[in-house]
């Protein structure tokens, strides 16, 4: 079993003429890689009618409905995160209720608000009630803002995680790039932070430091929008000689532990 905890799909509103082909490409590549479960989200319209990391409520409503349709179309293979923007609390909570009641299995947060902002508390509380994990986009840059998204850093996500110790939070793409080395330190002690290994910017030493920080027990396989690098990292981990039990945890065991019971069969 191989569970990709960080996938994305597109819709006719994504501003892409090849949105169907991209969706098919993900599934085809997944089949080649051996992915047995794609846990994925759609970030609004990917910037077409509202910004990717600051999606509007209308765009998220449409995207989440499309994600649920994909989940239904590929039952047992595709699973949905409900994507929300915490600046619109009422809409976010409504979307989570609708999404989870229709089989979505997690919550996706882009970088619309800093991760330790109180506006994320009601969303974390909803995750706690439903016992689903929260995947949070992270790209470390504590020293400055980055165009197009709110600063997003594991140190801040750790503060949210400590306020909601019953919720499992996934640190996307090993925290991305930025000043990642400093922030990998915090995941050691915050036990409800998990690291997904997706991302194009992940270098060899990020992988080693992530392993040093949490070991195989809190690493999750993921691809995000570059599936080749996701597969490459999995192969690299396999070559490190971690042992089959450790690799099984990264491939699927850790995901099975944090997502709702029995969803992956």
């Amino acid at each position, binding site marked *: 079993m191989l569970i990709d905890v960080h996938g994305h799909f597109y819709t006719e509103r994504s501003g892409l003429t090849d949105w169907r082909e991209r969706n098919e*490409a993900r599934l085809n590549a997944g089949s080649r890689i051996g992915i047995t479960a794609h846990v994925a989200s759609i970030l609004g319209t990917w910037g077409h009618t509202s910004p990717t990391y600051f999606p509007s409520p209308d765009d998220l409503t449409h995207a989440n409905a499309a994600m649920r349709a994909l989940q239904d179309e590929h039952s047992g293979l595709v699973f949905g995160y409900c994507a929300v923007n915490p600046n619109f609390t009422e809409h976010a909570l409504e979307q989570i209720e609708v999404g989870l009641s229709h089989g979505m299995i997690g919550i996706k947060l882009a970088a619309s608000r800093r991760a330790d902002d109180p506006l994320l508390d009601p969303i974390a509380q909803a995750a706690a009630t439903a016992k689903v994990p929260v995947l949070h986009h992270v790209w470390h840059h504590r020293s400055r803002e980055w165009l197009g998204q709110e600063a997003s850093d594991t140190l801040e996500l750790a503060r949210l995680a400590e306020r909601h110790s019953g919720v499992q939070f996934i640190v996307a793409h090993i925290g991305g790039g930025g000043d990642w*080395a400093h922030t990998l330190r915090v995941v050691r002690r915050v036990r409800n932070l998990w690291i997904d290994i997706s991302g194009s*910017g992940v270098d*060899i030493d990020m*992988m080693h430091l992530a392993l040093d920080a949490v070991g195989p027990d809190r690493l999750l396989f993921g691809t995000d*929008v570059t599936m080749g690098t996701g*597969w490459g990292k999995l*192969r*690299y981990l396999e070559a490190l000689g971690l042992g089959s039990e450790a690799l099984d945890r990264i491939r699927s065991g850790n995901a099975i532990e944090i997502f709702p019971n029995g969803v992956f069969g």
Partner: protein
Amino acid sequence: MIDVSAFVGPYPFRHLAHATEEWLLAQMDRLEIDEAWVGHLPSFLYRDPGPGNTALFAAVSSESRLRPVPAVHPGLPEWQAALESHAGRVPAVRTYPNYWGLDPAGVEMMSLAEAAAGVACPLLLTVRFEDLRQRHHLDAVPDFPPSAVRALARVGEGVRLVVTHADRSFIEEVHYGLTPDESERVLWDISWIWGPPEEHLRHLIATLGPARFVFGTGMPLRIPDSTVARLDLLDLSKADRRAIEEENVRSWLRNG
């Protein structure tokens, strides 16, 4: 397979767990890479890359699978002598004008391209070492620009450029900004071209043809398995895959 983009030596901006030729050889054995073109990683920040070249030759001298790619700084006196001493002994020379305070398309680089063409020595250009978003705050040097690749490719018939760590938009901007003859002077490594779901690599091979691409990893900064995985995700014929993995660069050197 021939990896045109590998390094030994430390990285100035952060600690590398694996910076030795022994580690490089172990990865090559594991991934069945026959030969690697190896640069000396910290030399891009040296005022004079000469000592880095000495260290590079010493590091790889006992292993024929590691082909040294020394650096030439065309802003230093007597650089022509350094180039001539390397020509014929190495598969290419590296140069880092953006880190050495030179205009990537300025007079020094044009002179280097012309001189390298004269001694049939390819130039290896590095667009970037790390993603712009994750660099050390002191590493504020812009990426090597596509306009400079176009300018260098136009210097003359004998010019040959191997451009590493370029993405799709960079490659297309250069390729369609050159005549077909000029485009044949440029090879692109595939280490920074994304696969599915965006399928940039599949698109580029379909539109530019497989003859323009070569295998590169970016070790020890980048994860070498990702380049192999990207090829595994394509439905290439054996001939096309072999071309990218090694034949393109071999025939390019033979015909140089």
